[in-house]
């Protein structure tokens, strides 16, 4: 574990992202959300609270996933393309250190974007007296863990494919995996002989829907998710991202640059 190296690499990713004004896109999106909410407010908000909250978590989930994919997919390919990789690899760090540092940077950028969007959305909804319960905090935490998984597989794809191909596949996996997972469960229930194959595919696919507590957060009256569930989500997120990091390293460790 080379923590000083991880910190240096992650800081570089965050600084580059801030200065490249990537986060401005997030700010503009937030502004659009505020504007849309004020329009709803103009027509009267009564009875629309749940709809507004549902919209908010959907938009939050979607945009934060897009940001996670776009940030992570270009980390390694950009280093190779811009030839900034050489002075990095000339330092006494391993290629795994490099991947870990870059992934941490991508996660931090994604989290900042997500929290900015969440804050702006919450502000917009609070203006119209929409109530939040404590489960909203759990929703945010679970979503942030889910974003680590998205960053992990997006970076892994980018090591094996071109940046555009990896972004496309990452989008398909991020948004399509929950549907596929549900389909596989139904398929296995209908035909038990398919169960082993379905289980294997389900193990390989990222279970991003596990991290989505949006449904509970939208409707009032849901209790808090037990701590052990949050602990499981944390462990799953850590294991899956670790596995993706390992997959990235398998290719990158001997890749000629």
């Amino acid at each position, binding site marked *: 574990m080379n923590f*000083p190296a991880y910190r*240096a690499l992650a800081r570089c990713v965050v*600084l580059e992202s801030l*200065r*490249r004004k990537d986060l401005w896109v997030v700010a503009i999106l937030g502004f659009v959300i505020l504007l849309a909410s004020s329009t709803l407010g103009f027509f009267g908000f009564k009875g629309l609270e749940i709809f507004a909250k549902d919209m908010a978590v959907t938009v939050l989930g979607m945009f934060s996933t897009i940001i996670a994919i776009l940030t992570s997919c270009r980390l390694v390919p950009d280093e190779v393309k811009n*030839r*900034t990789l050489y002075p990095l690899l*000339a*330092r006494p760090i391993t290629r795994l250190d490099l991947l870990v540092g870059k992934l941490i940077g991508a996660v931090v950028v994604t989290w900042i974007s997500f929290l900015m969007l969440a804050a702006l959305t919450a502000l917009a909804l609070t203006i119209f007296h929409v109530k939040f319960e404590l489960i909203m905090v759990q929703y945010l935490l679970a979503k942030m863990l889910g974003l680590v998984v998205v960053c992990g597989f997006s970076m892994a794809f980018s090591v094996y494919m071109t940046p555009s191909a990896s972004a496309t596949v990452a989008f398909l996996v991020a948004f399509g995996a929950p549907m596929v997972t549900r389909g596989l469960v139904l398929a296995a229930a209908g035909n038990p002989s398919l169960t082993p194959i379905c289980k294997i595919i389900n193990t390989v696919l990222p279970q991003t829907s596990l991290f989505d507590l949006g449904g509970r957060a939208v409707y009032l009256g849901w209790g808090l998710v037990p701590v052990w569930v949050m602990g499981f989500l944390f462990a799953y997120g850590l294991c899956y991202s670790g596995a993706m990091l390992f997959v990235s390293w398998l290719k990158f460790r001997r890749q*000629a640059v």
Partner: protein
Amino acid sequence: MSSAIEVKDLYVQYKTKKGEKLDAVKGLTFDVKQGEIVGFLGPNGAGKSSTLKALMGFVEAKSGEATIFGETAGTPDARKRIGYLPEVAMYYPFLTPMETLTMYGELQGMRGKLLRNEIEDLLEVVGIAHAKNKLNRSMSKGMLQRVGIAQSLLGNPELLVLDEVTSGLDPVGRKELRNILKKRQEQGTTLFFSSHELAEVDMLCDRILLIHKGKFVEERDMHELKATLRNFYVTYRGDASMLGLTDAWNENPDGTKTARFEAKDGLVSAITRLQEKGGQILDVVSQEGSLEDYFIDTVEAAA
């Protein structure tokens, strides 16, 4: 003197996009002693950058052995002792030189005030202290090359591996760089660099290694090579027959003759002969030979 770099029978192979195998380095063997400045020469595509990349661990050698101060080349332990300047200096466009060097320093294991002070000193040495807080994207190619030189010197490495070191620098920058490198050598740093700039090689190197098409061609001590390349010219009035040992002679428009000698011995005996036979010596000139001619001739002979 122990070796800073030792390369034995090194082979580097690339796979093209079509899946064909391309041998970039074929059985290269050489060593660089500690404290030496060694120039690594060869025409385009000779395998210089591939060799340097193998030394840094950017590409894996197909076979052979390369060590840096006894450590296997490419390992973090070996890289800890190397400062490396890549052929094309590209640095994060949205970082400043200060932030860029801070990151590299931290990756090198340095931190705090010590790192900050060293960065300030290095930026001063390479002449971009005034631009330390400007974004890299707003800098010229020459200034970026200076950032690159500064990052290669971070942590006071024992070995500097420099790929096309003077690329992008103006004559003033080149002179400053030569001074920096000479100073580092005086402090005990070993320098191994590739270059197309034969004038730089001439002014900096103790020794040169010449490769062509991935194979070793020859190594020469620079002082010996320069002595070999030196020519002596005698301009005299008299008959051509007065000089038995002449390698070549030219008749000048004013009727005088100029003879060329490759060795000092030949010159001395020619002068003696001229004096004995009543010839009038008008001028004696010693001229440095061209490294470029040597380079072209040697490469052509190796092709």
